[in-house]
């Protein structure tokens, strides 16, 4: 069996992502959960890089690892301070949930296998100019709608968190 460099990289990224996801669903420590989520998100960014989408990989890292994870830490600190208790992560062991997840996994693999071919390392990076053309061309409406969603989200978060201030 001949294993190429591309396959080794693929398996390394896959194992990192799976380890991060398993940490997210199983740990009871908040910081480990955030680190696991960071591992998972970093592996997704590496996969984007694997497929040759460098800008998307950098955006994923900046937006998620640099933004959402830090926001999560701040939210946990705020909750900890206001509740004066350690934010305890709890999970219930459910055989039904494990069975359902396994069945879903089998269904997804069975349904999608063959639809996505295995690619090799090093896709063609479209470049920032092509991305700009796409956003100001066929995706202009999408860009405007996402901007609207982001604005609505910002206002919603301000309304939700600032409403009950004494």
């Amino acid at each position, binding site marked *: 069996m001949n294993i190429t460099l591309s396959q080794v990289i*693929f*398996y390394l990224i896959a194992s990192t*992502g*799976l380890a991060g*996801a398993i940490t*997210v*669903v199983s740990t009871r420590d*908040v910081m480990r*959960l*955030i680190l696991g989520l960071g591992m*998972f*998100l970093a592996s*997704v960014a590496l*996969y*984007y890089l694997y497929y040759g*989408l460098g800008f*998307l990989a950098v*955006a994923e890292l900046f*937006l*998620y690892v640099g*933004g*959402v994870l830090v*926001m*999560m830490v701040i*939210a946990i600190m*705020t*909750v900890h301070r*206001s*509740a004066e*208790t350690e*934010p*305890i*992560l709890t*999970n219930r062991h*459910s055989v039904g*949930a494990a069975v*359902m*997840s396994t069945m*879903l*996994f089998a269904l*997804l693999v069975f349904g*999608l296998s063959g*639809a*996505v*071919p295995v*690619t090799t390392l090093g896709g*063609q990076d*479209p*470049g920032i100019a*092509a*991305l700009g053309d796409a*956003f100001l061309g*066929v*995706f202009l409406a*999408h*860009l405007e709608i*996402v901007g609207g*969603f982001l604005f609505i989200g910002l206002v*919603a978060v301000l309304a*939700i968190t600032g409403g009950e201030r004494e």
Partner: protein
Amino acid sequence: MSIVVVCAALFSLGVYGVMVRRDVIGILASIEVMLGAATLQLVAFAMSSGVADGARTEAVGLVILALAATEAAIGLGLLVSVARRSGRGRLDEMAEVEG
């Protein structure tokens, strides 16, 4: 092992996390795992099958990324708000919160 198996495993792990977690942070993180897996599958499908070119795939990925960040911000805002009001961070206890 193809990308389909990886994404299916990640998505199933996220679903499992949503079902077994009782705390809001854990459920939110599990939803992020599901969303990341689905986005990765979409990008992998687009890049592998040649349905769309790289720029369009990247644009769709960025749109999904922005929506996911908005969802995370609203979820964390709700968590902070409810925890401030009731001092609770567990979902089954939040069912008792009124107002």
